[in-house]
């Protein structure tokens, strides 16, 4: 079995994001970038399945500018076998990402495609479902547990009401929740070894995918600020304020 895992480079989850003064986006210069957190879970799960003997190969793919390669290198350092970087500059919408991934799926014929359930930059939560749609594959989104069977996966999904379990036939798409597993750290020797693993480079235009944005970003602004609150000295003061000032209890 072959597993393709899509990873995205995003502003690190610990960074306090700042909006640019000209309203064209957020500040990314000199800002720490990392792999989108649930994409780390996707890689971890694929590597675990390989370690259990149920998969033969894990391929990490990223789509983005030259620096996006860092996310593939990191995936290689934690156990992916080889990488693919599809070069595109600027914002690529999930629809275009899914079309690029479809081209790669047709080329590589993976049995499973994993990725994070949502990217923490655009918060779209679309790519996996879109890829499943255009491949006409089943989708198991928001996965917190994956059980690999012979020709299917049993997947526990996190939904608003609790948990749902579905069984999807292979080939399938899985989008991963942060609770799926605990991603491992790359050791220094493995980081060195990852530099020697193959990383194929392609251009989106060579794949025949139009990546032109369909959604115009008119402006980006700061969210409304909350006015500063106060510290109360005691529980009784708190309850009095809630009762008589805020009038919410």
């Amino acid at each position: 079995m072959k597993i393709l895992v899509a990873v995205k480079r995003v502003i690190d989850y610990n960074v306090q994001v700042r909006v640019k003064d000209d309203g064209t986006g957020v500040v990314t210069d000199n800002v720490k970038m990392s792999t989108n957190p649930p994409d780390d879970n996707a890689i971890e799960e694929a590597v675990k399945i390989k370690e259990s003997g149920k998969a033969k190969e894990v391929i990490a793919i990223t789509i983005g500018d030259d620096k996006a390669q860092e996310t593939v290198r990191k995936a290689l350092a934690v156990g992916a076998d080889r990488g693919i970087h599809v070069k595109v500059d600027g914002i690529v919408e999930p629809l275009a990402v899914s079309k690029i991934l479809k081209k790669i799926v047709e080329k590589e014929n993976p049995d499973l495609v994993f990725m994070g359930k949502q990217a923490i930059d655009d918060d779209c939560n679309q790519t996996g479902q879109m890829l499943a749609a255009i491949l006409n594959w089943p989708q198991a989104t928001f996965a917190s547990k994956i059980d690999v069977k012979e020709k299917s996966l049993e997947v526990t999904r996190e939904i608003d009401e609790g948990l749902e379990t579905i069984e999807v036939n292979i080939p399938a798409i899985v989008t991963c929740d942060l609770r799926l597993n605990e991603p491992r750290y790359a050791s220094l020797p493995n980081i060195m070894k990852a530099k020697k693993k193959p990383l194929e480079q392609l251009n989106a235009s060579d794949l025949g995918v139009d990546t032109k944005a369909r959604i115009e970003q008119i402006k980006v602004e700061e969210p409304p600020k909350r006015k500063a609150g106060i510290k109360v000295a005691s529980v009784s003061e708190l309850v009095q304020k809630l009762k008589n000032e805020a009038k919410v209890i």
Partner: protein
Amino acid sequence: MSVLLIAEHNNSDLRPFTFNAATAASKINEDLHVLVLGNKSDSVAKAASEIPLVKKVIHVDNEIFDNFTAENYTSTILKHVDNYSHIVCSANTFGKNLMPRVAALLDTSQVSDIVNVISEDTFLRPIYAGNAFATVKSNDKKKCVTIRPTSFDPAPSTGGSAEIVKSEPGDKFESSKFVKREEIKSDRPELGTARVVISGGRGMQNSDNFKLISAIADKLNAAIGASRAAVDAGYITNDHQVGQTGKVVVPDLYIAVGISGAIQHLAGMKESKVIVAINKDGEAPIFSVADYGLEADLFEALPQFLEELNKLNSIQK
């Protein structure tokens, strides 16, 4: 130009967020139609027809919709979209799972999780966990939009009498099978729509200590929330998680207990009307969004809080 809203329901009732989504949908265009896909779901179609904002209900009743799978929904939705400029639903786990599958097959770039309708093609949506707001214009002919339900008031549920039209399902998708759903039943208000939410974080230390939270929740008729750290640690189940990848809540009162206030948690609650933070670390970021901050050990503060509430003559429900 009409809007098609995909109803979320449980085969007997509409789920509450469908009413919020109806409000947003009617702001896009007043010619709002609702598509109900269910199994033995006549009561749902009827409920949808009674929403005064709704002009028409299309009802497809078939056993393939029993478990609301995105694959079976999508083929039927695609059969019904010809006359619509917009296809919309709630941006909760139901809509997040479903809408991109529809959008991709319509070759439409979806606009996710809108918090305001600026015009028929322009919407406001949070990005970066709500640390920025983007105004975006969709240039696709057919627009697929998911709606952050808590950003819109629920539509009235009675008074309407829209026509209900029966229709036929699309193809059944064979490669996916529903196994089971473990819903956590609770007598408390739903987290997404509760007037008061009290949430616990890692500071709660274990699941047993959440009893301190539930005692107050009982008193305030509140829903119980949690930070991701608390869910990850197994103190409480995932359906309680508030934050960027959990639920977004906008109650009148949000009480954060033992929650430090990571960016990802703030994303799910900082629009609440009044925020209270109880934390022993005075430097915790949660205090930066709190209207009332109490720097205290929660194990002392929560029992006192309950005691003070017991002293009050009346409490709003």
